[in-house]
């Protein structure tokens, strides 16, 4: 008998505590668990640490809401939509402390966390200034006599937030054919608690038809929530593209505090739930356009 993991967005987000270190799936404009991120802001979460490979709009929204005070990641950018301006402002004001890692160093820190090792080494970053400013990176002699490496201290996020195509009620997570990022390969395996939103909750028989597409086993997942278009306005390949209009609206708003507050009220704190959010951003008509990847 498998353990029931299906819950609601508010209950799942309540598993995240103030001060937690939260790993967030995201690659610039791709695949962020946005429904969960908006719910964390709605619930007024504070002092979060965000772990990301390349954080985009979720990082900027969390920064704008004052929900985070540190970031561990390789980059923060919305790619074609530019830098995350609210995040940038907060860092420059000293409100967010940044632990900048290269991709292999981030993978090493998370990999060590996942495997219960004190550290894993990388050859990346040698010669850069990033080692000197980071206590979690230490040059280490090769005990076998080869060149020195960089020891990357284990990182165990309190929570990992992931968005997926399919999940059953027991937390088995299915992915449709698409490019995969470390978010799935390592983040959830390193984290203490794993929360997954899925485009659809399906019967386990659906996952059994393609077990090679099951990417996370139910035993390591703590909560699953059905959230169609749960990555919006980021893309979720192959189902839908990123929403250019919302990204541009956000970029426009970031220049002005009142506009940021209005954006937050309209899209984050205003809508009563995820369903109302989807209506606010254009409902079925908008979704059809995004599914056709019309702006990309």
């Amino acid at each position, binding site marked *: 008998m498998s353990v029931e993991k299906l819950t609601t967005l508010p209950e799942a987000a309540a598993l995240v505590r103030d001060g937690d270190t939260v790993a967030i799936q995201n*690659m*610039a*404009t*791709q695949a962020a668990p946005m429904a969960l991120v908006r719910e964390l802001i709605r619930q007024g979460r504070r002092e979060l640490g965000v772990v990301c*490979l*390349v954080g985009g709009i979720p990082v900027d929204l969390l920064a704008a809401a004052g929900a985070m005070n540190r970031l561990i*990641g*390789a*980059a*923060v*950018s919305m*790619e*074609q939509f530019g*830098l995350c301006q609210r*995040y*940038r402002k907060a*860092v*420059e004001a*000293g409100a967010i*402390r*940044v632990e*900048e*890692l*290269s*991709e*292999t*160093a981030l*993978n090493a820190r998370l990999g060590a966390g996942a495997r219960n090792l004190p550290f894993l080494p*990388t*050859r*990346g*970053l*040698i*010669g*850069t*200034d*990033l080692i000197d*400013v980071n206590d979690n990176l230490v040059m280490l002699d090769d005990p076998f006599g080869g*060149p*020195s490496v960089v020891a990357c201290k284990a990182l165990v996020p309190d929570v990992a937030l992931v968005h997926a195509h399919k999940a059953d009620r027991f937390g088995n997570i299915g992915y449709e*054919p*698409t*490019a*995969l*990022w*470390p978010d799935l*390969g*390592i983040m959830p395996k390193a984290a203490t608690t794993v929360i997954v939103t899925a485009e659809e909750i399906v019967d386990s028989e659906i996952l059994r038809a393609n077990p090679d597409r099951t990417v996370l086993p139910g035993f390591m997942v703590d909560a699953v929530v059905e959230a169609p278009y749960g990555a919006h306005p980021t*893309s979720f*390949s*192959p189902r839908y*593209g*990123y929403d*250019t209009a919302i990204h541009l609206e956000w970029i426009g708003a970031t220049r002005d505090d009142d506009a940021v507050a209005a954006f937050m009220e309209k899209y984050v704190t205003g809508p009563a739930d995820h369903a109302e959010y989807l209506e606010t951003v254009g409902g079925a008509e908008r979704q059809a356009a995004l599914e056709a*990847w019309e*702006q*990309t």
Partner: protein
Amino acid sequence: MSDWQNSTPADDWTIDELMIARLAACFADGDQACNGMASFVPVSAFWLARLTHAPDLVWLAGAVGLEPRPDRVPASTLEAPLWRDSIMYVEQFGDFWNFALNGRWLTKFCVGAAQLDRYGNGNNSVIGSDYHNPRVRLPGTAGLGDMGSIGKALYYWNPNHNPRSLVESVDFISCAGYLGGGSERADAGLEGGPELVITNLCVMDFHPETRHMQVASLHPGVTFEQVQEATGFELPAPEGQLPTTAVPSAEQVRLIREVIDPDNMRRREFGG
């Protein structure tokens, strides 16, 4: 002999097309190339190389989509439309870095950096003297902090050659070049390093001993004085006449405009 080899120099080339053709010439059959975010010039260059002199150049789009067949350069170089019809998805954590770190593959890497200094060190981290209290927070090192240290040949591209982007010393090294110059990079145990810097004014390389950046060729109509004026450090005076960068052929220009990037996405990198 195929069309592109027969082709005469274009008479209406633009600077983006010249940079793309010059970067394409750096990639050959047997190489593997990958691109990251906001990389319209490298993506167009890989594609152009594959359509002309290097049909067997392997392209790993976005470091995840192997041998893709996009119908044109899309608005993003880090979104699924770029890796349409890939023959394989390379899982970014499990596979991509295994290939990149191994040493046998992906031996060349294109780098865009907010700041680049005279010894080829790149900075995408912070502007200002204190990392923890930066004057400007830049996006972050992403894969550059790895690629600079793991033996790759680095090809910098910079569509906006100016004294703010080409500086005497970067505020912070987030991509290792030749460090303090001379043998410093080798002394740190690092192989590879910066090869070329392709800008909208010229092509630069690095002196084999001092490792100082120097002009290798001037784009047509550009003088050394103009390049010096636009550079934030003193360039070594050229010994004799500097060569002129080859202009793209008419066929290369046609391929870029009609086949590769009909929506002119590459222009988005210029004028910033």
